[in-house]
């Protein structure tokens, strides 16, 4: 099939603009990123600057790939990362608009590549259980109800891609942060640091320049791992409880 691509270019000779490319020979079994590989190989041969985009596992789990495709983070399909979108979902002659994730806390590095290290700093601020290597008791010493473990898993399935931020009109990182807070708040292992954790992570999130949550819930709709906004409700409860308890934030 033939496609027209309008791609955001920024860096190198481009100041920040959409550039149009035509591809004539796109196979329906290609993945979206393989389609971009084909474009890039063509650009290199023509001695043009290839389009910078991020990707790694191409199995939908590493969270490296991003892109806003026709206005939607990770493209048109529900619960799917960009790397798992295949061209059979597009029609011959279509025009596709490709942009980077846009948020103040995700500055553009080049073309479609953004800096998401703010997510790392949110985790560093408290997204863990403080247990040194070798301090653990036997794994079966604390039974955990199967459903509870399942719910913790649902929150822990977040891949840290940042689609929630890109989808949010306020560029809020609440879904990401709440997924980690929920994962650890639901489990007995996370109990001891529960209050301190939520306060510190929310403080770091604010410091990074992410916006406030105003319950638009676009984050849940666009999340490739379908992380639920009920985690945000849980974060709010956890935060309130911790604040009322007067836990110091530092």
């Amino acid at each position, binding site marked *: 099939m033939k496609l027209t691509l309008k791609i955001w270019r920024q860096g190198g000779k481009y100041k920040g603009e959409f550039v149009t490319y035509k591809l004539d020979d796109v196979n329906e079994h290609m993945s979206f990123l393989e389609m971009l590989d084909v474009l890039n190989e063509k650009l290199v041969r023509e001695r043009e600057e*290839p389009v910078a985009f991020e990707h790694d596992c191409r199995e939908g789990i590493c*969270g490296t790939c991003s892109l806003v495709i026709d206005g939607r983070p990770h493209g048109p399909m529900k619960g799917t990362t960009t790397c798992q979108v295949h061209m059979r979902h597009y029609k011959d002659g279509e025009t596709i608009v490709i942009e980077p994730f846009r948020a103040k806390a995700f500055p553009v590095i080049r073309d479609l590549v953004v800096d998401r290290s703010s997510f790392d700093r949110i985790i560093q601020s408290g997204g863990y259980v403080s247990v040194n290597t070798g301090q653990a008791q036997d794994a079966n010493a604390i039974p955990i109800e199967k459903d509870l473990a399942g719910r913790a898993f649902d929150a822990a399935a977040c891949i840290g891609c940042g689609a929630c931020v890109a989808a949010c009109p306020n560029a809020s990182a609440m879904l990401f942060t709440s997924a980690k807070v929920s994962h650890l708040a639901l489990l007995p292992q996370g109990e001891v640091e529960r209050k301190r954790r939520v306060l510190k992570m929310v403080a770091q999130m604010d410091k990074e320049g992410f916006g406030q949550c105003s319950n638009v819930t676009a984050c849940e709709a666009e999340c490739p791992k379908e992380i639920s906004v009920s985690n945000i409700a849980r974060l709010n409860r956890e935060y309130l409880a911790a604040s009322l308890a007067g836990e110091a934030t530092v």
Partner: protein
Amino acid sequence: MAATDFTLKSNIPDGHVSEKWESYKGHVPLVSPNNKRRIDVIIVGSGLAGASAAASLGELGYNVKVFTFHDSPRRAHSIAAQGGINAAKNYQNDGDSVYRLFYDTIKGGDYRAREANVHRLAEVSTSIIDQCVAQGVPFAREYGGLLDNRSFGGTQVSRTFYARGQTGQQLLIGAYQALSRQVELGNVKLYNRHEMLDAVVVDGKCRGIIARNLLTGELERHGAHAVVLCTGGYGNVFYLSTNAMMCNTTAAWRAHRRGAFFANPCYTQIHPTCIPVSGDYQSKLTLMSESLRNDGRCWVPKSPADTKKHPNQIPEADRDYYLERRYPAFGNLVPRDIASRAAKAECDAGKGVGATGLAVYLDFADAIKRLGKDTVAARYGNLFEMYEKITGDNPYEVPMRIYPAVHYTMGGLWVDYELMTTIPGLYAAGEANFSDHGANRLGASALMQGLADGYFVLPYTIGSYLSNEIRTGAVPTNTPEFEQAEKEVSDRIHTLLGVQGSQTVESFHRRLGKIMWDKCGMGRTAEGLQQAIGEIRELRQEFWRDVLVPGRRDEFNPELEKAWRVADFLELGQLMCEDALHRNESCGGHFREEYQTPDGEALRDDENYMYVGAWKWTGEDAKPELHQEPLVYEEIKVSQRSYK
């Protein structure tokens, strides 16, 4: 029995195999807390081995620097491991034990792994599960709230712990969180988007690395008292593999060129259950977890005439469940190398299915009938979805089509019992080293080894070396050795950008991959390997004459990164072929077609090849030098591997 090679000191402690590790731990020199503060350790890579090592060494009080070429340490390819992690907990009361995990791993590796290392691995396996649970890793549980297990290929017990089909993700996030905590505490400094391009050796000891800041292109010198490479495997030498796109051999290969021996490079694991190739544009292959073989049945049509029929139209009597037929004791759960070769044999006999004829069926119809669709969905739902997204077929209704693909490399940098390479002060852990899986790795053992090395082995063994470094003081980087290494890196980048030829980096990588897959893949022959060596040499010359790398060095330039990595693969590929050619036997993942039993099984030659083949770099156009570490089996009786 091979002659003893005194160059390679494996430093295996004395005593019975089951007592070596305990005894080692009791006697290894320690570094006191006030001295640890004065010792710098560099960790390259942030996957399971790297993140767990960095977190643990940071907790101990060393100054740790972690380098990753990713934007975040959480992206490392360990994250993609699906099926699970083995541990000899025996929670199922089904007869498991440390000894049995040790035995299964040695046998699964076709008697080409080092006994002492494997026993230690089995011993620490149980602590890994404890540690991960304490971190909050949400493993699968039973209704009683205790941990659930499943079985994997090559074993007859259920010892695999899992977190749905995302075990690697959950374990890596556990290690990443532990690492993040150390970053917050100031014990670990993180260098993301930095790639190691050389190791620096001063007076025979590894004293640091040269890294490139991938955003600015700047070359940086980093000194340390020890450097640990946790940089994964080299499966991407085949171009198409289940590895992530950026997995590469560069760090290990650069260390090799500086004097670290490369062991058993030809031992490659071809995973039996991957989604088949669909076209020339294909950039990577996708694995379908081995756990699927717990309930899925492999088959092909009995007659080549039926291969184009719709699978649901082929009656039971006309199907050949070839694994169940050939290996009744293990059936669909034979080890990976055996399952892969069996699939290839059926396709070679004209019974392959799908458009290319390079696929077999993996069928869940029986499992759905026996367990119900809901149970099958609970076990494998996410894998079925992934399959459907990629192929457009629904595996609840139509059998999956699968074919083997390169997945893991058992070979790697040679290390001694302490995980130190042949360069003092340079260590290798996880898939980057060679030590625990012999010629074939069992399923769910890579996660186990990565975390064993990082959490429980290296933090002990590195002290043995570092206890002699407490008087060294900070390592200066303004020395001639650092200057020279940086200059060599800089010159090579200059050369890569200067060729300005006509062919893309991608096209060279694709051609290298094809040579490797055709001649050093599932089946190898002396003739094919000799051809491959010549072809790779020519391809490498062509690369340096005609490669086209766009852009500048002082900017974010992914094509330049890729060019460097492919240039290193072009050297490694040749060494893999040399190793496969010299090893005149078949064992595990290394199958030389000349050496097989009458029924097509791997035929080992224990008399002549029961050794680790470790290669020394001797120069770009020189023949590499082989060193042998004899493998001595004191505990396990060596026999022909049988899963019948």
